[in-house]
């Protein structure tokens, strides 16, 4: 897709060698444009998280190409990849999301400071990012003083702070109750509407219903579901979708 923020082209990822080799992704191609929220669904072990780690430059594909903002990740060295994670790609994990010894604001400011942004500017941007996810008053709290939903929103603020273009969320609602999960999805939707390309890995159809498009993975292969949020219902019969 022209102007795509994220492009995966026939990406394959095999773990292990010989008889113990396991193919996590098998020729997956995917394109995500700015302002688009794409949900990636699939059963456990289907390669969802692997897809996200490859998209974020946390891992390298066995074959195929991954481009972020037009840059081929295979051509970037460790320093450039780190810079990409500082400035372009934000990552939200299911858990272990925040550094426990830093306050919410300090957590959000980490990518900025790692990129050399000064303390004052970093703190200001961190507070703005936290305000953007509805946590303006909790900036000085440590993670253990935040609820699960607040922690995830803090992680989203960190993933969006600075000049980000791509937000990758790996089951961000997995450890949350329904209400907190909805709040997190609402924030992700807002970020996509604000122009970020968002990839959301989830196995719950009701969260996938927030997406513009759903990609279903099975055994490492992708089925692109372009279309309205009704898609997940056809994929996962019985799921409760509440967009």
């Amino acid at each position: 897709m022209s102007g795509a923020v994220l492009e995966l082209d026939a990406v394959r990822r095999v773990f292990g060698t010989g008889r113990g080799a396991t193919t996590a992704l098998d020729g997956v191609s995917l394109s995500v444009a700015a302002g688009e929220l794409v949900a990636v669904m699939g059963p456990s072990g289907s390669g969802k998280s692997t897809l996200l780690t490859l998209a974020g430059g946390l891992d390298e594909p066995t074959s195929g190409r991954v481009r972020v903002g037009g840059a081929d990740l295979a051509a970037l060295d460790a320093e450039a990849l780190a810079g990409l994670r500082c400035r372009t790609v934000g990552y939200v994990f299911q858990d272990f999301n925040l550094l426990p010894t830093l306050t919410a604001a300090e957590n959000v400011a980490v990518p900025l400071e790692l990129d050399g942004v000064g303390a004052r500017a970093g703190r200001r941007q961190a507070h703005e990012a936290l305000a953007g996810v509805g946590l303006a008053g909790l900036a000085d709290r440590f993670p253990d003083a935040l609820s699960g939903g607040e922690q995830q929103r803090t992680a989203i603020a960190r993933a969006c702070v600075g000049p980000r273009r791509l937000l990758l969320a790996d089951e961000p609602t997995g450890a949350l109750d329904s209400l907190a999960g909805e709040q997190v999805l609402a924030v992700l939707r807002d970020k996509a509407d604000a122009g970020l390309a968002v990839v959301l890995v989830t196995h719950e159809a009701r969260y996938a219903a927030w997406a513009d498009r759903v990609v279903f993975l099975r055994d490492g292969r992708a089925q692109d579901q372009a279309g309205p949020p009704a898609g997940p219902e056809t994929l996962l019969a019985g799921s409760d979708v509440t967009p």
Partner: protein
Amino acid sequence: MSAAASGLAGRWVRWRVALRLAARDARRHRGRTGLVVTLIAIPVALLAGGATLWATQDVSPAEETVQRFGAADFEVRARDGDVALDWVPGELPDGAQATPLDRGELLLAGELGLVGAESIGVDLGASVHQGRLDLVAGSAPEGEDEVALTPALAHDLDVDLGDVIADPDGEPVGEVVGLAEWPSALPRRTVFAAPDALPETTRAGWVVTAGEADHEAVAAALDPTAGGEAPRGDQPGADTPEAGAPDTGEAAAGDGGAAWRVTARADVVPVTGGGGLAAAFTVVAALALAEAALVAAAAFAVGVRRQLRDLGLLAAVGGRPGDLRRVVLAGGLAAGSVGALLGAAGGIAVVALLEPWLESWLGQRLPDGLTVPVGLVALAAVGGVVAALAAAAAPARTAARLTITEALAARLPPGAPPRRTATAGCALAVLGALLGGGAAWLARPAGGTLDQDPALVVIAVGAVLVVQAAVAVGLYNTLLAPAWQVMVRAICERFPLRTAGLE
């Protein structure tokens, strides 16, 4: 990379992040931090305390000369008790002044039995003795029935000012009117009386001040090698130094068989020494620091293992390998700095606490009191920080080599020990052996005096390097690393998928 990220400012910002994370982690894991801080603090305290103790007890050359001569410029001592030195005042040029020193021995009756003491006939009030003989209580004895005692003798006799001391027959020697001490020899047991007041004393010598007289003329008048004059040089003399005379190693006049000797204040070379002891102490403390670094390295390795997810998260949000390395090194810097500061302060504090007892233990007044050798203490503290950084270096390298997915899954990579480590270790071992051997060769012809000191220092350096290399290379590369690799490979082959991804 953004413009802000480049240059020193960006580097400092990243160090600040690392230091903040390390400091918070240190507070969170107080036990481990306390262990590292203690490991660093103890040898630093040893070094800082030892250096402070050394500097405190080390009397300066100027002060040592004062303790030997007081305000006098010359000391004239008979080599034998039978030698009369009554001619000295008459031979001196105008302006010079001689103060007699009479000396003998006494046996006194004390509460617990007889006590032997030397008796000195001297005018304690004379300014020429200040610094050499100090009146610390009461007044100087003037009459024939007045004496002053050194505090050590007064203690042994269990007498105080106003008491009368007596000989074994019960005959009174004199009333104690003052207490006086030898600053350079506090334990000396001495009875002081006015010159000629004690019948048992003989004229043992003089202390001479040149005053307005020409220094050279005074020296010439006292020169025992001049000869030719009736009262001088023709006295029977024994070539043995006077008992009790401080062995200062001074260049006494080249008087051959003369009956007296003259020591000029300007000619006295203060005694220096103890370099060997200092070198040995340095070796022990340095080895302690090295061993502390090795043990602390294990603590840092455990720290990295427990920090894996945090390090992985840091990498996932943009941390470079250098940033991960910095986080671990910052832990070493923080713990090392705290340990070094505590150690240095603790070492100095212990010496400060002991200071009131130091003079009695050393038997010498310490006119400068507690002396902190700032440079040496700072060196010890820097050594502590360097040791902590060295301890954190290997775990920091491990952190820098982490892959993000492995770190997030809290797994260490099954890396082989880098060849450079082994090479560097072997080079250190060879260097240490060469230094040790060379030092031994250097020390061989030395006669057991100061000549040995430089060699001892070299031996110390060599020994430290050899031990470091032997322990680090031997233990790590031959035992730990292969065992670790076997274990990790076994686990990895069993769980291939889990090893590489987050699935």
